[in-house]
C-alpha cells in the first residue's frame, strides 16, 4: 500500500508508511503521508482501527527480522518457566505466585473476579495487606532443595480430569490475553516499541486464528 518514494511529510527523513485521507461529506479534504514515528507522535495510530495497526506492524516486522525474543521468567526454586505454567496451568511451587506475580494477579482476577484472600488464615500467618502496600513475599517460599530445577521434568502424568481442567484454565488465560493485549499493543506503538509490538501483533493474530478454528 505504501509508495516507496513518498517521504514522511512531517520529518522528511523516513519513508511515509501511514497514508490518511480525511473526508468531509464525501469530499476529500486532506491527504496526509507520514512515517510510523510521526504518526504515533501525532496520536494518529491510536485512533485507527486495530486491523490497520496490525497491518502496519506486519510491514515493520519484515524489515526487522531477527528481533530479540522477550525473555521468559524462570522460578529459581522449582525451575519452571512462565511458558511452562501457561502450557499446563499448574504452578511448580509456592514461590511461583510471586515470581509470576504480574501474570498471576491478572489470571486470578479473571478466574475468581478477585485478587485478595479474605477467608481463614493459619495461626501466626501474616495478616492481610492493604492494597497500597508493596507486594508481599510468599509466606512459605520453599528453599532450593534436591527437588529443585533438576527434577522439573519429572512431572506427574496428568489424568484425563486434570487435562480437562488445564484446558479450561489455558482458555481463560487466552481469553484474557486477546482482550487486553490489543490495548497493550496500542501502548507499545505509542511508546515506539515496534519490535515488541510486532511480536505482540503476531501473538494476537495466532490466538484469534486458533479461536476461530475452534469455534
Amino acid at each position, binding site marked *: 500500500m505504501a509508495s516507496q518514494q513518498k517521504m514522511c511529510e512531517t520529518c522528511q527523513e523516513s519513508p511515509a508508511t501511514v497514508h490518511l485521507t480525511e473526508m468531509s461529506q464525501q469530499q476529500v479534504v486532506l491527504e496526509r503521508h507520514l512515517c510510523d514515528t510521526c504518526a504515533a507522535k501525532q496520536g494518529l495510530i491510536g485512533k485507527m482501527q486495530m486491523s490497520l495497526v496490525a497491518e502496519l506492524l506486519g510491514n515493520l516486522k519484515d524489515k526487522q527480522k531477527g528481533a530479540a525474543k522477550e525473555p521468559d521468567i524462570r522460578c529459581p526454586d522449582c*525451575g519452571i518457566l512462565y511458558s511452562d505454567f501457561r502450557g499446563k496451568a499448574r504452578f511448580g511451587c509456592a514461590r511461583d505466585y510471586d515470581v509470576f506475580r504480574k501474570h*498471576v494477579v491478572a489470571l486470578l482476577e479473571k478466574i475468581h473476579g478477585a485478587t485478595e484472600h479474605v477467608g481463614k488464615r*493459619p*495461626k501466626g500467618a501474616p495478616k492481610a495487606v492493604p492494597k497500597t502496600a508493596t507486594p508481599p513475599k510468599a509466606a512459605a517460599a520453599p528453599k532450593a532443595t534436591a527437588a529443585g530445577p533438576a*527434577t522439573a521434568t519429572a512431572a506427574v502424568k496428568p489424568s484425563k480430569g486434570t487435562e480437562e481442567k488445564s484446558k479450561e484454565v489455558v482458555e481463560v488465560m487466552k481469553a484474557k490475553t486477546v482482550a487486553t493485549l490489543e490495548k497493550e499493543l496500542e501502548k507499545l506503538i505509542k511508546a515506539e516499541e515496534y519490535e515488541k509490538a510486532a511480536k505482540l501483533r503476531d501473538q494476537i493474530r495466532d490466538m484469534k486464528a486458533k479461536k476461530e478454528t475452534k469455534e
Partner: protein
Amino acid sequence: MIRIDELAGRTGEWLRGTGPENDIVISSRIRLARNVAERPFLTVASHKVKAELEAQIRTGLESVNLGPGRLYVSLKDASPVDRQFLMERHLISRDLLNGEGDRGVAIANEETVAIMVNEEDHLRIQVLRSGLQLEEAWREIDRIDDEIAAKLPYAFHAQFGYLTACPTNAGTGMRISVLLHLPALVMTRQIDKVFQALSRINFSVRGLYGEGTQASGNFYQISNQATLGKAETQLITELANVVPEIVKFERHCREKLAKEQKTNLEDRVYRAAGTLRFARSISTEETMELLSSLRLGSHLSLLPDIEPRVINELFISTQPGHLQKHEGRPLSPQERDLARAGFIRGRLGGRV
C-alpha cells in the same frame, strides 16, 4: 486401625439418606486443598520427594483427631479393584486413582472424613455428610484443618491465601459440592433452566463422579466456582441459599407429575421395579436409570415395601468396583452384568 475390606460390608454415613432434605439432597461435601510449606508442588516433585511428602504427611496426620475408625490406604500398593472401589465411594478422586507414585488416602469416622495425600495438592481434605448439612460439614473440616496446620505448616500467602498447584483453587482452597437427585426436573424438561440460572451466578454443575462425568441416574453436583475473594462461610451461605430453591422446584415438579401424569409416572416406577427385581443381566447405565425411577417412586410413596436407604446404597454397590469387591475377584464386563442383576434381586427381594 481398620482394613479396607471392612468398608465393603457397610455403607458410609452419607449414603444413609437420613440428613435434611434427603428426598432430593443426597450429600453435602466440603473439600480443602492444602500444600505443605517449603516443599515443591506435585507438578514438579520427583518420586523421592513424593515418597518423603507422603511419609511426612502420614506422620503429621497421626496425632490429628479425624474421628473413630481410622484407615490409611496406600494407592501405590492397592489393587485396581480396591482403587476403583474407593473412587466409587467418593473417598478418592479419579486423579488419585489414575496417578502414579507414592500417594494415599486417610479415611475416618464412617467415611465422613477422607484426606487424600499427593493428589494435585499435597493434601485434599474432605468432609462428607448426608443430606443438606453444609454448616455442620464446615465446622468439622475447619477443626481438622486447624489441627493439621499445627503439625504441617501450610504454604500460605498474605494476599493470595492458601497456595494451590492450580490457580482455580487458590485463596480458600475450598470447593463445596451438594449432590442432588433431580429426576422430575429432567422429566419435565426444566433442568436446563436450572443449569442456566446456576451458571449465571457462578455455580458449576457436574455428574455423580465429578468432572467430566455424565449425570447418570439424574444426579447432579452443584459447586462453587470461585475460591478467592470471599470468606469460607460466605461461600457456604451462597450455596446453602441456592439449594433450597432447587429443592423447591424439584418438589413442585414431582407433585405436578403425580397429579397430572399419574399413570405415566406409576408405569415408569413399577416397570423399573419389575426389571430390577427380575432381570438376569443388567448394565451399570440401565441400573442407574431404573434406580432413579425407583428412588422417585419411593419418595412419592409408591413403593412402601422398599426402604429409601436400600435404593441409595444400590447406586453405589452396583458400580463395577463394588461388585468385584463383593464377589471377591475381578470380573469381565459380561460377568459383572450377571452379578449386578443377581445382587439387585437379592437386595430388592425378587422372589424368582
